[in-house]
C-alpha cells in the first residue's frame, strides 16, 4: 500500500533545487552523508585489532644489532572501528554497483560475483607461486585454458600471460618486437603512434627504448593512411594502433596498414583496450596484427578496484611467439601441463624474453576472466560486442541533437560515442557537463580524451546497461546540456550534491601534501 503523498514525488522523478539553508549539525555529518577522519586521527599506535600471542622466546642474538629503535609510528584500530572506518569511506565512492560508469576506453561493465567467489577458492587463492609444479596443475590449467580462449578469440598463435596491466602488456609486445628485430640483426629506432593514441602508447615506446613519431588522423577520425605509408621505412620498427580507435571507430584500413608495415619490415602492435567492441565479431589476427594486449579488467570484467589491479596478457603472431617472456605455461602434446622457467628455457624456449614480473602474472584475474568467458561462451561473447555497440550507437543517436558528434555523420560508432564541446555556450565547458552529471547521480564519461577532439566527451555504456538505464542516463545528460545552453550559472559550480564540491587541484600540485604529518 502506498503512503499518502501530496506531491506525488517518487524516485526517478525530477526534483527542484533544495532550499539554500541547511540545519547546522554538531557532528559535521548530515544524515547518511557521513564524514570520516583519517586513521591517524582515529587510532593509537598501541591499539591492535588482531589477537596475537606475545611470544616467549628471545630474539636471535645475531639479529640484536638490527632491531628497530621504536615501534613503527602506525595507528591501530579495533575490528569494529576498522569496519566502520572503511565502510563509511566506501560510501563516498561511486562504483558500477551503484549505476552506469560510462567512462570511454575504460569498459566499466558489471563485475559478476561468481568470479569473485571462484577466485577465492583455496585451490587458487592459497597457492604459492613457487610450489612444485605437480602441486599446481589446476593453476596451470587455468592459465592454459584462458590462453586457449584468448588465442581462439583473437586468431593469434600464442599469448604471453604475465604482464600485470595494459601498459605492461604494451611493453611486453614492444619488447617482443624489438627482440624479433634484433634476432634478425635489424636495429630500428622508431615507433609510429597515431596522435589519437592513449598516452601509454608513446610512453611505452619510449620506455622500450624507441623514438616516437606521431601520425595524424583524418577528418573522419581514422589513421591517415597516406601519411603512415609515406613515413614507413627501414628505420621504423613498427606502429602502435588502437582498433577500434580512441574515437570509438573501427579502422577499416587495418589490414592495408598491416600489409604496408609488414612490407616495410616492421611489426604491428594493436592496443587491445577496445577489444570489447569486436570480441566474437572479428579476430585481430585476421587483420594482420602481430601483438595485442588484452585488458582482462575491461573486456573480461575483472574488477577495477578503484585503480587496479589490472591484467594485460599479450597475444602474439607466429613471428613473435618465440619471444614471449618467462615463465611460460603450456600444454604438451600428451596433455600434461608444463611450466617453462629458466632451467628449461634454453632448450624449450631459447629466444624468450626473461621475466617481466617475478611470478606468473595476475592469477587472481585469470580465474575471474576464465569464469567470465566460460559463463558467456562463444555465443555470449559475440552478443557482448553486439550489445555494447548497440548501446553506444543508441547513446550517440539519442544525444547528437543536443551535443556535437564530430564523427556522427561518418556512420555508426563502435562501443563508445564521442562528442565535442562545439556548440556549448561561451563560458561552459565539457568539465561543467561532467560535474553536472555527478549531481544527477551518474559517474561522468571520459572527458578531454581523445586529444584530437576539442573538449572530448567519450561515452562507453557497455553491454551490461539496460535500455531503461540508458534512457535515464540520456535524459540526465540532455538535461545538463540544456542547462548549459540556458546559461545556468549553478552548473558552473557543480557538483552541489556530491560528498565534495570541486577541488583545488592547483594547490594540491603546487604544494604537494602526500602524507599525514601529525604526531612527529
Amino acid at each position: 500500500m502506498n503512503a499518502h503523498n501530496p506531491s506525488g514525488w517518487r524516485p526517478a522523478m525530477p526534483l527542484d533545487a533544495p532550499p539554500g539553508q541547511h540545519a547546522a549539525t554538531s557532528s559535521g555529518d548530515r544524515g547518511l552523508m557521513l564524514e570520516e577522519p583519517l586513521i591517524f586521527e582515529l587510532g593509537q599506535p598501541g591499539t591492535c585489532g588482531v589477537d596475537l600471542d606475545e611470544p616467549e622466546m628471545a630474539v636471535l642474538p645475531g639479529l640484536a644489532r638490527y632491531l628497530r629503535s621504536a615501534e613503527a609510528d602506525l595507528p591501530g584500530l579495533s575490528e569494529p572501528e576498522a569496519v566502520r572506518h572503511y565502510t563509511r569511506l566506501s560510501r563516498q565512492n561511486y562504483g558500477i554497483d551503484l549505476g552506469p560508469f560510462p567512462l570511454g576506453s575504460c569498459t566499466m561493465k558489471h563485475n559478476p560475483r561468481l568470479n569473485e567467489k571462484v577466485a577465492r577458492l583455496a585451490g587458487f587463492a592459497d597457492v604459492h607461486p613457487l610450489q612444485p609444479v605437480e602441486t599446481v596443475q589446476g593453476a596451470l590449467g587455468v592459465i592454459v585454458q584462458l590462453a586457449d580462449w584468448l588465442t581462439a578469440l583473437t586468431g593469434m598463435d600464442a599469448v604471453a600471460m604475465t604482464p600485470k596491466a595494459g601498459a605492461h602488456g604494451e611493453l611486453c609486445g614492444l619488447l617482443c618486437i624489438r627482440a624479433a628485430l634484433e634476432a634478425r640483426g635489424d636495429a630500428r629506432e622508431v615507433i609510429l603512434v597515431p596522435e589519437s593514441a592513449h598516452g601509454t602508447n608513446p610512453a611505452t615506446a619510449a620506455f622500450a627504448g624507441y623514438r616516437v613519431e606521431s601520425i595524424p588522423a583524418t577528418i573522419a577520425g581514422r589513421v591517415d593512411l597516406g601519411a603512415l605509408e609515406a613515413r614507413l621505412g627501414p628505420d621504423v620498427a613498427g606502429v602502435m594502433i588502437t582498433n577500434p580507435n580512441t574515437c570509438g571507430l573501427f579502422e577499416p584500413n587495418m589490414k592495408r596498414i598491416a600489409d604496408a608495415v609488414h612490407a616495410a619490415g616492421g611489426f604491428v602492435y594493436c592496443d587491445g583496450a577496445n577489444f570489447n567492441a569486436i570480441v566474437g565479431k572479428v579476430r585481430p589476427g585476421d587483420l594482420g596484427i602481430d601483438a595485442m594486449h588484452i585488458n582482462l579488467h575491461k573486456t573480461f570484467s575483472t574488477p577495477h578496484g578503484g585503480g587496479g589491479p589490472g591484467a594485460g596478457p599479450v597475444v602474439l603472431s607466429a613471428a613473435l611467439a618465440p619471444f614471449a617472456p618467462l615463465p611460460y605455461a603450456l600444454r604438451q602434446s600428451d596433455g600434461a601441463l608444463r611450466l617453462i622457467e629458466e632451467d628449461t628455457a634454453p632448450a624449450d624456449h631459447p629466444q624468450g624474453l626473461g621475466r617481466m614480473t617475478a611470478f606468473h602474472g595476475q592469477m587472481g584475474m585469470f580465474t575471474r576472466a576464465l569464469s567470465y568467458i566460460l559463463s558467456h561462451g562463444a555465443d555470449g561473447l559475440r552478443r557482448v560486442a553486439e550489445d555494447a555497440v548497440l548501446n553506444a550507437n543508441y547513446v550517440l543517436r539519442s544525444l547528437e541533437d543536443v551535443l556535437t558528434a564530430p564523427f556522427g555523420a561518418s556512420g555508426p560508432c563502435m562501443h563508445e560515442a564521442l562528442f565535442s564541446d562545439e556548440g556549448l555556450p561561451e563560458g561552459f565547458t565539457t568539465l561543467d557537463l561532467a560535474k553536472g552529471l555527478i549531481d544527477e547521480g551518474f559517474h561522468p564519461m571520459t572527458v578531454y580524451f581523445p586529444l584530437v577532439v576539442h573538449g572530448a566527451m567519450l561515452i562507453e555504456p557497455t553491454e551490461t546497461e539496460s535500455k531503461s538505464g540508458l534512457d535515464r542516463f540520456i535524459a540526465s545528460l540532455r538535461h545538463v546540456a540544456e542547462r548549459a545552453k540556458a546559461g545556468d550559472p549553478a552548473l558552473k559550480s557543480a557538483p552541489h550534491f556530491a560528498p565534495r564540491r570541486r577541488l583545488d587541484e592547483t594547490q594540491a600540485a603546487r604544494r604537494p601534501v602526500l602524507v599525514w604529518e601529525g604526531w612527529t
Partner: protein
Amino acid sequence: MTPSLGGSEAMRYLPLTASDRAEMLGVIGAADIDALFADVPAEARLDSPIAGLPRHASEMAVGRHMAELAAKNLSAGNAPFFLGAGAYRHHIPASVDHLIQRGEFLTAYTPYQPEIAQGTLQVLFEFQTQVARLFGTQIANASMYDGSTACWEAITMAGRITRRGRTVISGGLHPHYIAVATTMARFTGDVLLVQTPELTAAPDDAATIAAIDDETSAVVVQYPDVLGRIPDLAAITEAAHSKGALLIVVVTEPVALGLIEAPGTLGADIVVGEGQALGVGLQFGGPYLGLFGCREKFVRQMPGRLCGETVDADGKRAFVLTLSTREQHIRREKATSNICTNSGLCALAFSIHLTLLGGAGLGRLARNNHTRAQAAAAALTRVPGVSLLNDSYVNEFTLLLPRDAREVVNDLAGHGILGGVSLGRLYPGETDLHCGLLVTATEMTTDEDIQQFATVLEALLVDTHEGAPT
C-alpha cells in the same frame, strides 16, 4: 570438459531484451546489428560464434568447472607449508576480505572524478602515509604492480636523478627481481652489475660495497636478503653516498619491518617492496602490490600515482590524484614511466590489515614470526646432515642439505609437505647453491607442521645416506 548450456538464448549478464534491441535499432536507423559493424571489412567479419568453442554456461556449471580445477592444486592450508621467497602466507583478518568486496571499492575506477571518489582517495592517502612510516621514508606513492617491477622502476628513477647508468645489484636480491631488471636493461642500455650470492652466514655486503665506483647510479640491496640474512644497510649507505650513488632497498617481506629497523631510517634513498604479505593472499603470484617510498626531494622523478591533500570549494579537506605532469597521460613519451595504474584494491587490503595491526600489532606479529622461525630452524637442524646457513634472520632462513634441495622439495611434496623453496629452483645455473633450501615460518606455522616436516625430511635424508656411496 568445459561447461556449456543447451539451447537457451538467455544470458544472465546481458539485460537487453529482443524487443529492446529492435526498438533501439529503430532509433539508430539501422536495419540490423551487422549494419553497425559496417566498417569491419566483410572478409574479416565473423558470421557466427567461433567454431569449436563452448556456448554460454550457467553459474552452477561454471562454478563446478572452476572448483574442479582448484581441487587439482595442493593449497597451502592443506599441507605443512614453509614457502616464502617473495610471497608469504600470513593470517588475513576476515574483515579485510569483507571490506574490499564493498562494491563501492571493488567496482570503482581510478579516482579521476574526485568529488565522488573520496573513499578511494582517502584510502590512498592513508596508504601512502602507512608505507612511508613503515619504510622510514618521507613519502610513498599509491602502489605499483608488484615488488619486482617497482624495483626496476626504482633503478630507472635513480638513473634520472644521478644521470649515471650503472647499477650495482647485490647478490642478496631475489633472482626474479634481478631477472626483471635484466630483461628491461637489455633494451634500455642500463648497465647492471649483478652478483650471485655466496653461501655464507654473513650477507654479501663486502662484495656489494667493493663494486661501487664513481659511475654507480644506485646500489640495490634486499633487506632481509633472499637467503633471509640481514645486510648492514648503514655501512652500504655510507659507501654508496661517498661515491654519489643512491641506495635502493628492496623489502619483499614487510612483516620483517615490525622487528628490524626501517630502511629509510638507516639512510636508504629509495625503498621499494612487495606488499603482498599484508592483506593479500598468495594467489599463485598475483595480483600483488608494489610499495614505493623515497625522499621528498625526488618526488618529481617518482613513477606511479600520487594522492595529495587539498580542499574543495567549500573549504573542506579533500584528496585528489596529483603531480600527474609526471605521468603518461599528460607527458606521453616524456613521462617518468609508462605505468597507467596502481594496484588499488591490493593497496586497500594492505592498508586495512596494517590498520588492524597498528605499530604495536606489527611488532608483535613480527616477533611471533621470528619465534616460529626459530622453532622451525631448531627442529630442522636436528635432522642429521642439515645445517643452518644464517646467523641472522627474521622469519626466513636457508638450510644446507646433504643433497640437491630441488629433489628434496619434490619428494616432500610427494609426502604432502610444502617444504620451502629450493635454491635450485631460484638459481638453476648455479650448482654450488643447489644444496640450499629456503624455509619460511610465520604465525600460521604450527608445532605439528614443524614436527611433520622434520620427521619426513629426516626419513628422506636417511634414505639418501643409505643409498649414498661411503
